[in-house]
């Protein structure tokens, strides 16, 4: 029995060391910061001004599972040969990468509306940007709350 205190001390020391080492070793995937998102947007938009309006980003405000989130983007546009939506881009703030999808449309689309399913790693702001044929950019932002984020359940394969 006289050995027990030593055992405990060792165990405690071991756990502390292991915990410390573990914390140092676990490297979470780097998350895109709002700055990374701004940079990604700049790559698409360049120096052009982004106006708000015209685009409607459709995302549920509260999401239970970030692994599949239904997302829709629609743009008010007559979709004629002279006035149409050229592209729709979606960006996220806190996913490991800011880009989500970049869709190229044309006047033949008839209706500028796309839907898909996305992964969202964390509660964050999602931004949709559309480029019109006249070169102007329009955006919409939605704040989403995620209960269970994507990308985090490393062991669930």
């Amino acid at each position, binding site marked *: 029995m006289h050995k027990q205190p030593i055992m405990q001390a060792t165990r405690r020391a071991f756990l502390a060391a292991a915990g410390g080492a573990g914390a140092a*070793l676990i490297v979470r*995937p780097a998350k895109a910061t709002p700055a990374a998102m701004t940079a990604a947007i700049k790559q698409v938009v360049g120096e052009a001004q982004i106006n708000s309006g015209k685009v409607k980003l459709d995302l549920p405000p509260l999401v239970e599972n970030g*692994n*599949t*989130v239904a997302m829709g983007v629609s743009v008010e546009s007559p979709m004629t040969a002279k006035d149409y939506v050229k592209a729709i881009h979606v960006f*996220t703030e806190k*996913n*490991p*990468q800011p*880009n*989500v*999808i*970049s*869709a*190229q*449309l*044309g006047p*033949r*689309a*008839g*209706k*500028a*509306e*796309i*839907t*898909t*399913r*996305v*992964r*969202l790693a964390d509660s964050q702001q999602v931004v949709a940007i559309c480029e019109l044929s006249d070169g102007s950019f329009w955006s919409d932002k939605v704040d989403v709350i995620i209960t269970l984020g*994507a*990308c985090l359940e*490393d*062991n669930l*394969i």
Partner: protein
Amino acid sequence: MARTLINVPQKAKRGEVIAIKTLISHVMETGFRHDNMGKAIPRDIITSFVCTYNGEEIFRAALHPAIAANPFITFHTVATESGTIAFRWTGDNGFSQDASAKITVG
């Protein structure tokens, strides 16, 4: 071979805006996850989706790891003429999958 599911109306009136829905089975492995040994799982995603209507490109999308597994994409087009609407998905590790649907425009 990945399974695809395409939804295109069989018949449409000329000039009508039709909705096209596409689904393809694919893991869309992000490259940000780790296995039980802590080893990073390499990225394996579909990076590009292209839709052509009688050979003319009508829709193209660049996909990123943030697209959920089994990518589901819907979009619209104007039914201009009878013919074939073809789809192609391409991705990492030489992934390529084609699908097509026939449409009769009257």
